[in-house]
């Protein structure tokens, strides 16, 4: 049952990609760095290169964390929508399979937050 | 062990006679004084009797008046003309 209603019921999703003026949403979570309280919501052009995403979006987003300066993005272990995944830096977000409202997890083994407390 | 019922009353002059009556009628009741309120707990059942309250204050008392000073309660409620009780069935 999609909804308990008194009669016929038609609903429209409020966050479909066409409502974001050519952009798509991507969520980014840096694991073991809970000083950032939640994953970020990032509105991005689907044709943005993954390399540009790293330089122009991901790096500034995490810059305030003391660990940020030590992150080697070539070594980051990624998950895309909870599946292990290896990005192609020269390809676009779309070509990398990152869809609207996809969630990226980045793990940085060896970097475990403020004094290793996962913060 | 039976579950505990409870009632919290505002800590004021009005409540004092009720608390005294509860202690008289419910030997197992435990009275706790907390910031600005009085909490009374008992195992299984708690009763407030009109007669006892009236005996303490020496004036007529309508049980429904008490609801003005109740902050919270836990248990099944039974309200009669001459008593108010809380109980769990387990």
């Amino acid at each position, binding site marked *: *049952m*999609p*909804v*308990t*209603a*008194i009669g016929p019921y038609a*609903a*429209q999703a*409020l*966050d479909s990609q066409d409502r974001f003026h050519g952009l798509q949403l991507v*969520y980014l*979570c840096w*694991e*073991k760095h*809970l*000083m*950032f*309280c*939640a*994953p*970020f*919501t*990032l509105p991005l052009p689907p044709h943005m290169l993954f390399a540009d995403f790293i330089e122009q979006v991901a790096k500034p*987003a995490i810059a*305030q964390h003391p660990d940020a300066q030590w992150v080697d993005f070539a070594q980051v272990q990624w998950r895309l*929508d*909870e599946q292990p995944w290896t990005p192609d830096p020269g390809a676009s977000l779309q070509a990398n399979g990152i869809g*609207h*409202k996809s*969630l990226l997890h980045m793990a940085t083994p060896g970097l475990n937050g*403020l004094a290793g*407390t*996962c*913060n | 062990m039976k*579950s505990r*019922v*409870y009632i919290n009353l505002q800590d004021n002059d009005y409540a004092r006679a009720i608390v005294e009556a509860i202690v008289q009628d419910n030997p197992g009741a435990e009275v706790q004084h907390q*910031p*600005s*309120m009085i909490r009374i707990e008992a195992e299984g059942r708690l009763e407030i009797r009109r007669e006892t309250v009236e005996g303490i204050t020496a004036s007529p008392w309508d049980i*429904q*008046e008490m*609801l*003005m*000073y*109740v*902050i*919270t*309660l*836990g*248990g*099944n*409620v*039974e*309200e*009669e*003309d001459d008593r108010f009780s809380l109980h*769990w*069935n*387990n």
Partner: protein
Amino acid sequence: MAVKKRLNAKEKYRCMTRDLDWEPSYQRHEDIYPHERFEGIKITDWDKWEDPFRLTMDTYWKYQAEKEKKLYAIFDAFSQNNGHTTLSDARYVNALKLFLSGVTPLEYQAYQGFARVGRQFSGAGARVACQMQAIDELRHVQTQIHAMSHYNKHFNGLHDFAHMHDRVWFLSVPKSFFEDARTAGPFEFLTAISFSFEYVLTNLLFVPFMSGAAFNGDMATVTFGFSAQSDEARHMTLGLEVIKFLLEQHEDNVPIIQRWIDKWFWRGYRLLTLVGMMMDYMLPNKVMSWSEAWGVYFEEAGGALFKDLERYGIRPPKYVEEANIGKEHITHQAWSIFYQYSQATNFHTWMPTDEELDWLSEKYPDTFDSLYRPRFEHWRALQEKGERFYNPTLPMLCQICQIPLAFSEPDDPTTLSHRSAEHAGERYHFCSDGCCDIFQYEPEKYIQAWLPVHQILQGNCGGADVESVVRDYYNITPGEDNFEYLGSTEHRRWQDWHPNDKGSTPASPADPDRRQTA
């Protein structure tokens, strides 16, 4: 002739409520009460409805009028004596800002909800109880606004609470909770609000918070709180009677009620995160920790309740174990959200003082020092260097509770909890199994959620940058109503009122960068 002088309470109640009801003869029952059937609840005999409080309308008005007289006398005394100047500390008022914009509008929604379901039930006992509760809720809205109007003369952020409730990102958490209940059928509404919220969880909202107000010198709030609670005892009892009545009416009702209890326990628990945060972080003089309050008012009191309901085939709510684990974590996680997004709130945030940090360590011995203290000490060190931390990005929100995905996995406090589901080709994200389950059962309802972050990014909240959304769409004045407490106009004003009081808040440099991230 024997004339009986007075009716006793039972007889009077029967005459003045149920005896005023009648059976319709020229309209069909289902046309008059069109909402009574579609949820699948089966009522065979409304006369089995028990009214524990045999309160008739005339008695109701008499006592409510007396409550109001007492209450307003105290409001007058409080304001005539400049009660706001003798609070424990001005930081306390930030809890009131959260209360006025987050909770008071819910009282209004409760009024709307009970007025509607009172109309929709064909049982006279249920209708009268809902009618009284609707009027109670309206009274609560009014008394809260009156109590806060005094604070509004002297503090920031209280000026437009109803407007903010409809728009501000974190206020969509309480707003959507109640709208979810009000857009359900009448029986789900009662299970949600009367039982799951009023009976099972509301003590956690009012009792510790009101004691907290008493402990922090806020006589006005204590008084409206206790005045409201005197109605609440009646509401709680209605909640319990509703559940017992529905369960006794038909065995087919049991699984439906169980699912609603599961859903609304979880929704209420998530909502109360805000209250827990208020208790642990926003009361300068603490009464009890969230963890302690959860122990007394949920684990103990709820334990007795669910034991009592066992014989109807009802078990404790699903995911109750996760809530019991969460009590050690959620308030610290919530304060972290508000601290780093304080550029977009209608209240100030701050880092706990040394004493407060020690209190938290003592109350949360298994979690605070290892997981949360390092984060707070880091932020405090940044603040002392004049680099107060604000998060310039927007957070990812749960599709159901609409809280940022800031809660940790029940079995791993160093990993953020995340669940997702697909519906009609679209991805949806959740903070927990509890929220995910709610979505999966009625996806068509929740794909319409108005998620504030997504709405900002769609351009539906005015400007493209956070500062203009906050200023123009929320009507929050940047630099006055929001950001860090230390060095705020409110902090300075408090110091002007108390020139000799150096102990209440630690001296610290003002916050030169506080507008930078907006």
